[in-house]
């Protein structure tokens, strides 16, 4: 018998016994929907954290300059040397941002209220217009953009005059007057107490040279390029500047920072390293998801096996008739596997639909009030991200569960004799 005839026969039998397969389809669909929801949400959460981190840190691959004697204040020593190293990269960045940063030592004051800032960023507003919806113009040097949390604590609104207090590179108190040009909502882990001012203004307040910067952030068009470029950039920089070894993880980075040095030491850092702890957490969540999936799969595997045995038993006379009509064992197995393939395809379809329904239902609710989870959300909501490799892995897992569970009963069925007709 030709294979397309087996497929056709399999489809006819599948359609004829659809009611018998319903429970099986439901069980498989539920399992597939569960893992699809979990993996897509996990990817979505990581995507949210990554996007927020990319905006927060201003890049995917960074050159940072730390001046040990100025505490957490930093500056890149030679812009020309850094530019040469960037120009020599085999994959040119699609975009770059220079930023200054005051870490944990800035305060914003308004109307008798004060707010300690975890990050005071000096940015080039025109270059970052996409990150700031109401980006101030290049001549608006007194502009400040506050996070919603900071603005709320101060009671400040757009147009208000605020005072930014910082410590200079030598530890003196310095202040500047700024006008609030925008208040940004940011529910991410990085969104709390931070503000953005013009880089040159911040440098002046900190006592740094006007055009200096702490970090050069590079963006690449293709995902994963930043990680590939990091060692190349590090090697290129090493030839001209004092550069720390490329850190494998955050502990490595912290160790490099704790070492003694004089003047400026540069660090090449990837965004993945910045958010490695969040990545570890989500990878742990993935493992939990797959553990659950395997548990569900085992249950499904047993159910499939039992249900299919039952179905085969109920159809023994039919299979016996087929044998009597001259069907070979291999052909019986092939027809039964074709049936299983249709079960698999229908389960895949209904499982995908079910997962979309669950995700849609989840997206209707705001989870922003649940402590700890807000860092993974986009405007308080869970957002899934479908990755081809995840979907393929899930489909492969489903195939891996389904067909071994069917092979046993199908093989037994193929061994039924024509005598089974009378049973």
């Amino acid at each position: 018998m030709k294979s397309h005839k087996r497929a056709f026969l399999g489809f006819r039998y599948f359609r004829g016994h659809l009611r018998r397969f319903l429970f099986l389809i439901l069980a498989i669909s539920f399992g597939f929907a569960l893992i699809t929801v979990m993996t897509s949400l996990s990817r979505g959460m990581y995507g949210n954290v990554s996007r927020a981190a990319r905006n927060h840190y201003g890049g995917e691959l960074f050159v940072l300059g730390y001046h040990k004697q100025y505490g957490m204040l930093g500056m890149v020593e030679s812009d020309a040397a850094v530019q040469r190293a960037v120009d020599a990269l085999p994959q040119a960045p699609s975009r770059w941002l220079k930023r200054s940063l005051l870490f944990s030592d800035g305060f914003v004051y308004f109307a008798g209220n004060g707010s300690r800032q975890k990050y005071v960023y000096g940015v080039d507003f025109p270059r970052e217009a996409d990150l700031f919806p109401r980006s101030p113009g290049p001549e608006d040097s007194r502009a400040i953009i506050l996070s919603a949390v900071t603005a709320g604590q101060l009671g400040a609104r757009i147009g208000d005059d605020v005072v930014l207090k910082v410590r200079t590179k030598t530890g003196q108190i310095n202040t500047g007057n700024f006008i609030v040009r925008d208040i940004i909502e940011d529910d991410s882990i990085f969104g709390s107490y931070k503000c953005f001012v013009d880089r040159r203004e911040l440098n002046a307040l900190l006592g740094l040279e006007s055009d200096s910067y702490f970090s050069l952030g590079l963006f690449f068009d293709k995902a994963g390029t930043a990680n590939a470029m990091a060692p190349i950039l590090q090697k290129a920089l090493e030839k001209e500047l004092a550069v720390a070894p490329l850190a494998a993880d955050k502990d490595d980075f912290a160790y490099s920072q704790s070492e003694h040095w004089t003047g400026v030491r540069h660090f090449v850092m990837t965004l993945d390293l910045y958010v490695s702890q969040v990545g570890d957490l989500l990878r742990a969540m993935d493992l939990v998801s797959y553990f659950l999936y395997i548990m569900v799969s085992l249950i499904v595997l047993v159910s499939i096996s039992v249900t299919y045995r039952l179905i085969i038993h109920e159809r023994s006379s039919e299979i016996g008739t087929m044998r009597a009509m001259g069907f070979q064992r291999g052909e019986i197995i092939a027809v039964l596997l074709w049936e299983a393939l249709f079960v698999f395809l229908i389960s895949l379809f209904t499982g995908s639909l079910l997962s979309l329904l669950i995700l849609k239902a989840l997206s209707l609710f705001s989870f922003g009030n649940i402590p700890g989870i807000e860092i993974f959300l986009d405007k308080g909501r869970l957002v899934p991200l479908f990755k081809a490799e995840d979907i393929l892995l899930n489909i492969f897992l489903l195939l891996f569960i389904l067909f071994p569970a069917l092979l046993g009963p199908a093989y037994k069925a193929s061994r039924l004799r024509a005598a089974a007709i009378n049973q």
Partner: protein
Amino acid sequence: MIKHRFLLTLMLIFSFPFFLEAEDYRAILEKADALASYLDSDFSAEYTIVHEKSGSGRETTVSAVFRRDSDYKYTIIVAEPSINRGQGYLKLKDTLWFYDPESRRFNFTSSKERFQNSNARNSDFTRSTLAQDYDVLSASRTTLGTFNCWLLDLEANNDEVTYPKMKIWVSDDYLVRKTEDYSLSGQLLRTTAIPSYQVLEGRFIPRAVYFFEALVDEKTVISIAKPSFRAIPDTVFTKTFLEKSGQ
């Protein structure tokens, strides 16, 4: 003739500051430092620090302060509130330690930091070194309430001081009556007032020091009681003393 003498006197009075040189202004600061520092003996007292913050109410901290100004040393033990009891500060020259009895650990802190989250800075508890740390930019005569004062504009000559710019009102008896602390860019940050002093063994000790933050609605009053110039054992200025006090 009388009219001319009167005019001459007026001119002398108003031009008085211009006859003084920068060195003379420094001498005013040195005299003010001398009165606010106790170099020939130890000093101890009980400091009651009341900190008021708009919307957060009032917090009271009671501390025992031990100073040995001649060696740039001080030890402060917090007695109240009970939650902070046993916390302590030990300043040995340029190094300032903070001791937390909960963790039983010493941590470095800075003289520029707030004392127990009040508006006083850790540097407010040590000897006065205005003449050493600041240059006088300008000076004028003024009155502050009932006091005739020198008003001196100061600018720090090093980065170690808490405030880079100050205005200071020194009465004719060389006691500091008021200071205004400014940022590098000239923003007023804090006003300090010392309206009255108590006298013990011929030396002046503030009765109370008032701190008013300019950028936030906060104020702190430090009342100084039980002052003493008796000798303090050397062991008080050690980490062991802080550890024992914290038990």
